[in-house]
Every structure is written in structure tokens, then in C-alpha cells.
């Protein structure tokens, strides 16, 4: 088992190198550089030259990449931000990643909490009113994009009812273990709307997947066997059927986890949350090369880890799966 994990992780290193180099090279291939222009105007060539020299952008790309890789391996340094002068990508990720983790984990938890029971109920009461309403809610949840749901919730709960603040994130530093905030009222009051916005869409897809998968599993022979042996219905469903039917759910949870925890641009934008998602988008517009490569690498690492954890979970969910 340990050998398997180590091997998987070692195999992923070339992936990271290839990925970062591709990002590195692709970004530089896009027309326009980080310093050609300031705001609404262009900059003289001499000024651009000074700035490029300062950040070594005047060197050949292999040399730039080598420098970046060396700093990363030797000093765990992702390089300087080109847009926020005097700050490093480590600083930027360090302050925004914990926020995205907080939001992401809560949204994911909400999604599972709503999605799995809803999907299970729908499957057990197939073609009943419960099923139809759950399916209807799921379709609504999937179809309403966050950029509609977010402002809608703000309009109802912040402007209309005046129960919750419109935006911003209420977590106070320092965080426990680097990401757990103090569970203050302020934190939760700011978190309710964004978590709900982000979580409902996810819960809808989880519910649909759970329903489909469970419907298939409860028709399997071993479920009939379990019932025939006289096991209680709830034990049959939860211990035998649900556990097995969660395999597809777990499969999508891996990439979903990596994507949600590294931040979501739209929700962060609407609620003014200082998370990491916006850097995936704005750093490209700014041509902030080190920041783009940095956040891409973090996403990739998380994706690899999440998928590894998914594979580990298979072994527990499905007794036939073994890793050597």
C-alpha cells in the first residue's frame, strides 16, 4: 500500500514538470507582456526594458524556467508577483489559499449533506412524489448558475430581509492548522450565502449521481441475497447498497474537491471573498507569469492527491479492489 502511494507520487513528478513548463511557455506565447502597458496606456520601450530586466524576462525561456524550477526546489519559492510589486507568489497563495479551503470544504460538506440523502431518498422512492421533487430540485440546482444564484441570495437575504451581510469574508487570522478559522458569529454570518451558493449546485449533481447509481445497485443479486437473509431494510440500504453505490460519487468528488478548494472565481467575485480562485483568471489578464504557474501547480498537486485518495477509497468501498 505505502509502496503504491509512493510510486504514484513519484510518477506524478514528471507530470508536474511537464505541466509547469507548458504553462510557462504557453503564457509567454500569448501576445502582450506584463509590463507593456499600464492602465489605459502604453509604456516606452526603455521602461519596459527596465522592468523586464528586473524580473529576468529578457533571458531565454529555458533559462527563466531553470531559474524558476531551482528556486522552487531549493527554496520552495514560487517566484515574485509581477503585478503586485514587492510581493511573492508564496505570499499571495499563503493569504488566499486558506480562505478558499474554508469556503470550499464547507460548500463540499453542504453538498454531500444535501446531495447524498436526497439522491438516496429519490432512488428508494423511485417514481414517487419524493423522487420527482428531488429530481426537479436537482435540475434546478444544476441549471441555475452561481452568478445568478449569488446575487439572488444577496437580494433576498441581505437587501430584502437584512439578515446577513452582503459580502466579504469574516474569518479572523491566525488560522488553526493554517486554515481553520475561529468559529465566530461574524465568520458564519459572512459564510452562509457563499457556501450555500457554491454548495447547492454541487449537491444537485451529487444527488443525481447517487440516485442513478443506487437504483442500479439495489437491483443487484447481493442486495436480494441480503434481503433474503432477513436483514433490516436500513442495514441493507446503508451498509450494502449505499456504500457500493457511492463509487461514482467518490470518483467525481476527487476532481471536484481539487477544483472547489482552490477557489471559485464567480463566487469569490460576487461576494468579495479574498480567495485563490480569482488568481486563475486575473493573473492571465495581467500576464503575471509566476502567479499563473504557481496556482496551476497547486491545482495540479491537489488534483493528483485527490485522485490518489479516491483510489484509496475504492479499496474500502469495493472489497474487490486491491492495490499492490
Amino acid at each position, binding site marked *: 500500500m505505502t509502496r503504491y502511494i509512493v510510486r504514484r507520487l513519484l510518477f506524478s513528478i514528471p507530470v508536474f514538470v511537464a505541466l509547469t513548463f507548458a504553462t510557462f511557455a504557453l503564457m509567454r506565447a*500569448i501576445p502582450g507582456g506584463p509590463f507593456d502597458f499600464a492602465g489605459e496606456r502604453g509604456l516606452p520601450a526603455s521602461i519596459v526594458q*527596465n522592468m523586464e530586466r528586473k524580473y529576468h524576462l529578457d533571458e531565454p525561456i529555458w533559462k527563466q524556467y531553470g531559474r524558476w524550477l531551482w528556486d522552487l526546489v531549493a527554496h520552495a519559492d514560487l517566484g515574485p508577483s509581477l*503585478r503586485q510589486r514587492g510581493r511573492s507568489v508564496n505570499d*499571495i497563495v499563503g493569504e488566499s489559499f486558506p480562505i478558499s479551503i474554508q469556503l470550499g470544504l464547507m460548500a463540499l460538506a453542504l453538498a454531500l449533506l444535501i446531495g447524498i440523502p436526497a439522491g438516496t431518498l429519490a432512488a428508494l422512492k423511485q417514481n414517487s412524489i419524493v423522487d420527482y421533487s428531488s429530481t426537479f430540485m436537482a435540475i434546478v440546482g444544476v441549471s441555475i448558475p452561481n452568478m445568478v444564484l449569488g446575487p439572488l441570495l444577496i437580494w433576498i437575504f441581505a437587501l430584502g430581509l437584512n439578515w446577513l*451581510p452582503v459580502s466579504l469574508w469574516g474569518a479572523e487570522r491566525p488560522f488553526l492548522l493554517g486554515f481553520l478559522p475561529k468559529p465566530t458569529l461574524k465568520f458564519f454570518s459572512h459564510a452562509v450565502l457563499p457556501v450555500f451558493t457554491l454548495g447547492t449546485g454541487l449537491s444537485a449533481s451529487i444527488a443525481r449521481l447517487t440516485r442513478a447509481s443506487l437504483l442500479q445497485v439495489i437491483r443487484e443479486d447481493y442486495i436480494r441475497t441480503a434481503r433474503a437473509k432477513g436483514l433490516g431494510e436500513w442495514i441493507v440500504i446503508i451498509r450494502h447498497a449505499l456504500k457500493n453505490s457511492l463509487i461514482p460519487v467518490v470518483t467525481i468528488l476527487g476532481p471536484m474537491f481539487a477544483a472547489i478548494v482552490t477557489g471559485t472565481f464567480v463566487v469569490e467575485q460576487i461576494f*468579495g471573498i479574498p480567495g485563490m480562485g480569482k488568481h486563475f483568471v486575473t493573473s492571465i489578464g495581467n500576464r503575471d507569469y509566476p502567479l499563473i504557474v504557481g496556482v496551476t501547480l497547486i491545482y495540479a498537486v491537489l488534483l493528483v492527491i485527490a485522485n490518489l485518495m479516491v483510489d484509496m477509497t475504492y*479499496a*474500502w468501498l469495493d472489497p474487490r479492489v486491491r492495490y499492490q
Partner: protein
Amino acid sequence: MLTHNRIWTILTCGVIVSLLLTACAAAPEVVQVEKEVPVERVVVQTVEIEKEKVVVVTPTPAPVKEIILDGIFGTEPPTFDPNISEDTTSVWSVEQIFLGLTDYDDDTLEVVPELATRWDISEDGTVYTFHMRDDAVWVRLHPDGTIEELGPVTAHDVEYSAKRTLNPLTASPYAYVIYEIKGAEEFNTCDPKALSDEEFQALEDGVGVKALDDYTVQFTLNHAASYFPSIASLWVVRPVPQAVIEQYGERWTEPGLIATNGPYMVKEWAHQDHAVFVKNPKWYGWTEFPEAGNVEIINLPIVTEASTTMAMYEAGEIDYLGDPGWGPPLPDMDRIRADPLLSKEFYIAPRLCTYYYGFSQQNPPFKDNVLLRKAFCAAIDRQTLIDTVTKGEQRPAHTFACPGIFGNAADDETIAPYLLDYEEGLKLAKEWVAEAGYPEGEGLDIVLMHNVSEAHAIIAQAIQAMWKEAFPKVKVTIETQEWKVYLKTLAPESPDEDKPNVFRIGWCADYLDSNNWLNMVFNSKSHENWGRFLNEDFDKLVEEAAKEQDPAKRLELYNQAEKLLVDQEMGMCPIYYYTRVTMDKPYLTRIVSPISMDHVWKWKIDWEAKKAAKGIR
């Protein structure tokens, strides 16, 4: 293996469950939340500072309550370092915390003294000697609220600042704005790697800025430039604390390290999240200026979405919409105007920028065809565009430099009158387009390009429709590009065949003189001259105006230059002069700066009214 699996499961479940619990715990408590959102807490924290202030310095009685201004940063400020600031957010912040040699009067837009109480100009107009006041001090606010004094602000700090901006190793994006200073361009454009230390030092010493004594600084210029006092207000030459910068390097702007000298100090700057400025009690202006306001704390959370800030404003979480955040969003404008309450809080202030369309003058059909350029520019109904599309009560433009800039010709209605009178313009446009060889626009296939933006798109579509109506046989295609790609396409070194025939662009003031407009943008040598308007007569006019010392003659020269640029040659097509749409809560009294450099120290808040307004909500 099984046990390993178990541990994993338990761990994962544990995390999930704990999160679920916290998430659940949130729900029932929610109701009472909004009553005690940020404001109160900050008061408690900062009261200590006020006590400190009282103990350490202020002879004046301390106010009963700290007056808080709630605003918004529309983006994370790229920097608070004056020498490398380039964007409105940074510049707005710098204005609050650093003093300039000179400043602008909010009403008249004239240059007024700030750190420099007066200045002498040599006979030939090339040497400016600024005499500085001696009671400005460097202060550093520590996290515990104590204020540390770091000595007086001196002429040496000004010299250091100008040289730091120009040092190629600083890589300041704005250094070129002070190339008027002797030796500045040579120093800024040198390659430090190719030079010995002595050569580099010689170039630095050759820069024409020198502290004659602690409170006198002298600038030597390449040529007479009567607009130099205007340049002396710019952030790139504001005194910066040499010792602090040398001690902490690029991180010197972090709270707790940064030393400032302006009306406010940096108390907090949680990057991407919020910043807090607090009153600097050691700033001389609080007691000296009768117009000083009462804002003691400026809260600036960072919100990057304009519609969210509008919602925050309506929920009473912020006091105004405007710099350094967002104005009210365009889609909300009709609702705001119709709303009995909101319409009273909404007003429009000028902003020193011009929105214009450029013609690529290296490509047919606009190449060497002034009549065609004039026809297309005259066939735009500016007033209708403003009333139905931009909706910000902008002023139709018929010149380049906007009102408020020294030398602007916006009120001279003899310049391109057909741009203001649409009926007349349309008639002429139809004649001109025929005379240019394209009757009714026959055979014309025009590409109109703008950078990706909702606002630019609707303007372009409206203008496309106007051209179609004026010249029925013309074909106008709208293309868009992402901002950086767009400017790369327009850049002089890019191939001419890739360039659009017509493109949208804008220009905003750095300093309030036409030199910053006509000479800096449309001189043949300018890197901002996107359409390649190359005209020797124009260059001569604006270069002469730069050196001329008699204001009346300068006005005349700029007037001629505007006439040449727009009316005679149609080198660019002015659309409108910008405005700034803002909203203020009734309890806030403020003056909006047309150049994004608000003097918050003049703003006043009726604290009782603000408290009452918050209480109701």
C-alpha cells in the same frame, strides 16, 4: 492495509463531520448577526490609538468618538510605494499617506503649495528651486498603536525619491513622466549591467535634482517647462523615507514598517482582503487648514465586483460609491434615476479623461484621406450616444484635451463645430464621403475594434449603426480583443495589415497641462500615438508650447495644435469627455477629485446621522 483504510476513513469523516457541525451551528444564530457587523469592533480596537495620540501629541481635545469612513477598494492596491505607482488605486492611496511638493486645488484645479511653500524659477525657465516647510514629519504606526516619529521630511528625501524613480534598477513604470529633468532619461534608460559602478554613479549624479540644504530642493530641466510645478505634484517625486526603504527593501510598504508623512497612516493592509488608514495626528494640516474634515479612520475592504458594492451601498455597509472603488454599475443607472431616495444621493462629477476613436493612418482607406476621416467622425451623434448608451451625462467632445486641462480648447466652438452639431455634421459627412471617392460609403469595408468590455461594446454597436445610417452602403465589422493583445495589435511595431481601421482608446491626465496630452500622445515620437498621426507642423507646435514661458502664448499654441489635430487633419476622433458617476450617503460631505486623488482629509461625516442611518437598517 485495512487498518490504514480505516484511519483514512475516520480522518476524512472526522473532517467532514466537524465541518458539517460548524456549518450547522451557523444556521440558527444567523438572525442577530447584522446588528454588529464590522464598524463597532473597529472602534473598540482603535480607541487605543486615539488615546495614544492624545498622550503623545495632539494638543487639541480628542473627539468623543472615532469617525469612520466606509469605502471600497475596487482591486487589491498593486502598491503603496509612490515611486512605482501607476494605477488609480495605488495613486489614490499614495495621496492619502504621502505629501507632494505641490498639490491641486479641488475647485480651480490650479497648482497650490503643499510641502513646498514657494518656488523660484530661473531667468531661462530651466531651474526650479522649491522651498519646503520644515514641520512635516515621518511617522510609523506600530501594530500596538504607538506612533514613532522618524525625523523631519527634508529636501534630501525629495532628491532620493526622484533618483529612485529614475534608477533603472527600481524599474518604475512611470519614470518617463519626469524625463523633463536633466539627465533623467539618460539615467533611466542606461543598462546597469553594461556599465561600471563609477559610470552608473556618474549617471545618477548627473540627474538634475539636488537638495541645496535640508529644506531647499532644486530641479534642473532639459528645457524651459512652465508646467513643471504641476509635475512636482506627481507621486513619483514625492519624498519617500530612504532609511526605511534601504532597511526593508521592497517590503517597506507593509503595515508596521512603512513610514509616511501625509494626513493618514497605514494601520492594516491584509492583502486581497482589506486595508485601514487612520488619521496621522502629527500632520500639520489638521490644525492649520480650516477646511480639514473629521474622518479619522478609513475602512477599505477589497471588493472586485461593481454590482456587489452597489448592493453594499444599498444595505448601508459603505458610505459612498467612487474612487478607489466602483461607481454605480451602468445597468443600475435607470433604476437609480427613477428611485426617489437613490436619485438624491447620486451625482455626476467631471473626470479628466477623453474617450476617442483613432484611425489607423498607415492603412487604406483612411491613409492620406482626411475627408474620409472627417466624414466618419462627423457622422457620430454624440449627444444621443450619451443620452441612450453611456448615460453618465458626459460632455460631447470636439477636441482632445478635456476641460480642466491647461490649454484645453473644449470651449472654442470654432474647432470642428460639425462634431457638436449633428445635423450639420451628418450633412457634411455625406458630402465628404462622396468627395473622398466613396459615395454613400460604397466600397468601404471598415474594421472597428475595441478591447473586450461591455461598455465599449455597446458604444461601438451604436456608432456602427450611426455609420450605417449615414452611409448606407458601408460595411462595418466590429472586432474585439483582450486588452493586452489589443494594445499589442495597435503598437507601432506591429504589422500595419493587422491593425483595425478604427479603434477605441482613451487618455487620462497625469498632470493638468496640455503637454501631458497633445505632446505626450500625438507627437510623432510618442509611444501612445497608436494611429500614427505623423505631422511635423503639429510636433513643432507642441514642442514650442512646452518650452514657451508666457501662458497666453502657450494657450494660443495649444489652440492651434488642437485645430490642426482634430479639425484640419482629423488625426483622432473625439467622442466624449468623461464624467465620474458617484453616490454619497446624505451624511457624507465630500469633494470628488477629477483626477482620482481625493483629499479625504477634507471630507466630513455627520457621525450622529451615520449612526442613526446604520441603526435603522
